[in-house]
């Protein structure tokens, strides 16, 4: 239905989308996830030409839309969009919001449009509020009305741009259930979202966007259970890194300590976890060759799985030091291994699960 090839978009000198390739088929529900500022929304807005892409091609139903010849308004009528900030027309009642498109754009009679609108409002549970003005509605109600407005144009695909990000936690679910209902009816949808569980349940395909490209895509299971690539893993497991660089054996202990404290406080590490990590750290900093160049030390903590691991990237030319034989480490770690990476030794230590 939609083929996107080498799509690029830059604002002034900032490249937001570098090279996005994606095919969307009829009936698919695609969730687009990824860290903030990686161009997810921009990508969605490029699809219906709210932003003019700077390069690449978008082919919709066999027709190239970026050659400037296509009627963008006609295109947008087939491609609904739901915004983070709802954007209901403030001067119109809910019913009029849903009617204005069909009446003014599709040339339907007022009566016909109203009947259809009431049907749609029933679908999203807003029939009762048909005569209300947008200012009288809660966020969740506004968003559901906006979805009804979108549906009024009989779109072939709906683009959701973070539909629940501006909502109170209590209202998120009412909007998500409407989207779920649409999914069951077989509506084609592309959803930019931060609701991971929702993305996992509802989508047929999950797209992880990072660095202006589609970094990894797959079924929800593939992306959420076995992400293949590092950044995806970091993102879906909500892995938090602590990184420290050692340049000499006389490193600034107090600086390290305060950084570590700050990190632990930020991600709510338990006292127990902290103590164990510090024990291993003490051994590591004693054993590892700190003086012969830069040594990178990482501590990783997944907020999702609560797994902890440590990595140490030894200076160039340093030999492995046989950490696995150390008693403390053997006791606290479930796995200790190393590999060579560009001539440097990388130690990986997986901490044992704590008894919670």
């Amino acid at each position, binding site marked *: 239905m939609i083929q996107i090839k080498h799509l690029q978009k830059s604002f002034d000198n900032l490249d937001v989308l570098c090279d996005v390739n994606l095919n969307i088929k009829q009936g698919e529900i695609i969730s687009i996830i990824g860290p903030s500022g990686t161009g997810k929304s921009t990508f969605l807005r490029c699809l219906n030409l709210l932003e003019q892409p700077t390069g690449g091609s978008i082919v919709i139903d066999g027709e190239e839309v970026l050659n400037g010849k296509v009627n963008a308004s006609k295109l947008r*009528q087939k491609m609904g969009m739901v915004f983070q900030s709802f954007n*209901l027309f403030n001067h119109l009642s809910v019913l009029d919001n849903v009617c204005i498109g069909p009446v003014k754009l599709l040339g339907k009679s007022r009566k016909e449009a109203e009947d259809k609108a009431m049907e749609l409002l029933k679908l999203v549970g807003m029939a009762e509020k048909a005569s209300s003005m947008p200012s009288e509605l809660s966020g969740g109600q506004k968003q559901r009305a906006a979805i009804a407005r979108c549906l009024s144009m009989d779109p072939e695909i709906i683009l959701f741009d973070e539909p629940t990000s501006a909502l109170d936690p209590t209202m998120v679910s009412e909007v998500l259930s409407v989207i779920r209902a649409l999914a069951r009816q077989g509506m084609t949808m592309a959803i930019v979202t931060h609701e991971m569980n929702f993305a996992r349940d509802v989508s047929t395909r999950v797209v992880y966007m990072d660095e202006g490209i589609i970094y990894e895509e797959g079924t929800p299971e593939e992306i959420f259970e076995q992400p293949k690539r590092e950044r995806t893993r970091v993102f879906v497991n909500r892995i938090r890194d602590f990184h420290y660089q050692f340049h000499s054996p006389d490193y600034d202990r107090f600086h390290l300590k305060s950084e570590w404290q700050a990190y632990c406080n930020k991600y709510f590490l338990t006292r127990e976890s902290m103590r164990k990590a510090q024990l291993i750290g003490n051994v590591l900093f004693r054993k590892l060759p700190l003086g012969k160049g830069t040594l990178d030390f990482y501590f990783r903590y997944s907020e999702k799985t609560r797994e902890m691991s440590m990595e140490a990237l030894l200076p160039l030319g340093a030999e492995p030091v046989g950490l696995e034989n150390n008693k403390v480490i053997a006791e606290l770690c479930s796995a200790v291994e190393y590999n060579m990476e560009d001539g440097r030794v990388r130690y990986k230590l997986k901490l044992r699960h704590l008894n919670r």
Partner: protein
Amino acid sequence: MCYNPRAGRYNPGCYIMNKCFHIAATLVAILYISIMPAGAAGKSEAPQKAREGIACFEDLRGRVLAVPSSTVQDIYVEEHYPDIKLDRFDTEADMMLSLQQEKCDGAIMDDVICYALVRKTEGVTILPDSPVPPCQMGMVFGKHNAELCQQFNAFIAHLKSTGELQQIMERWIKHFDTAEMPDLKLPTEGKPIRVAMEPCTEPIVFIKNEKIAGFDAELIHRFAVYINRPIEIVEMEYDSLIASTTTGKADMAASGILITDERAESVLFSAPYYDSHSRVAVLTKNAHSSIVTGNEGTPILGIWGSIKRSFYRNIIEERRYMLLWDGLKVTVHISFFSALLGTMLGAFICYLRMSKVPLLRNIAKVYIDIMRGTPVLVLLMMMCYVAFTQFDNTPVAIITFAMNFAAYVSEMFRTSISSIDKGQTEAGIALGFSPVRTFCYIVLPQAVRRVLPVYKGELISLIKNTSIVGYVAVADLTRASYIIRGRTFDPFFPLLMVALMYFLIAWLFTYILDRIGRKIC
């Protein structure tokens, strides 16, 4: 203001009552002030020693003298009597009023006018002497109109030789209250002579029974018959008379204009047709008893009687309400078209101001700055007397007001449009509306709703601003009140009626606007 602490908000009923009380109180105050000189003031005021006993002009030294602004009297007194403080006025009627209200001690003016005014005003006496040398009155012609000037000179010479000039003069000056315009058959064929006049000065030029009358008016009518050309009277402010002949708004100007060397540099004067002596009017009670002649006391009517008489004299007599009605039509006409044109122009300026092209944006910015930075009166004079001298003044005034109005409303439009959330436009476009239709269906209705309250205020201020068109000889509502005041010397009813009418126009316009607004939004 009425704030009800218990309800915690404005109580509209209480507010309106309070407002009504204010208006009533103000009316009573105005009423009192206006009838004071006629009735109350004379008996209640204790005689002021310092002002008593003015017997000749010398006695005015160290006191306040009202003069018609930039006339011979003004210049002469200022030069020769530096210790007399001068109050400058545009019309003799205002000077008389000032005198009655004791804001000045004397009022100097041309003798013809002075005799007429004093006869109409109670409690005023003329001083026997005046230091200002006599001056001659003449008609004014543009320098390019020398031929017409020659014809007029010949006409005056003819009148003098037959003694008719003397007769005309005596009729208007001695018996002006009974004098009538001669029943002349004015020519209608041919190119009309446009005569600029200020019809607020009895007995020279004034409006009587809705028609122009007076000494100069009769001369002009007779002149028209004499050279067999129709005339077209252009009414304007005294200050604009002379300028109008040089800009070509009029072929000649009349209204008791005195011949001075300074004026003669820029215009042509006809041969003098009247020698004008200056006279000074003072309040009888301040005058020395030696110069007061039999002063028959006027009956005191009481407040209600005074109001009734004042209303009759100012509104009913000589069908003066027709003057107000005609003025009202002109004001509504100018206001309506200025608002219409100004709104359209404002929308266009706003479009330029919000354009993506820097050049257009800057053009709009400069336009707005200039229009907002110049007084609309100055702009109006420039448009009428410098830029569009060959056009009729009413359309030029409409364009001027529209230009000024546009500058203000364009900024209002801009702020209200840019106050509409960008998401609204985006949602419209995403729904499939073209940018133009998005603007029309989504942004505009919301912007209109936001701009309406401020726009209404600006509209009212435009309507009130139109009151300055009198300066460029357009006979609007304010001008009508001037003309009436020029005859009756009573400011109360003409001003009150005019204020009321402006209020009604403003109310009507905002009412219509509200109806339209409710329909759009």
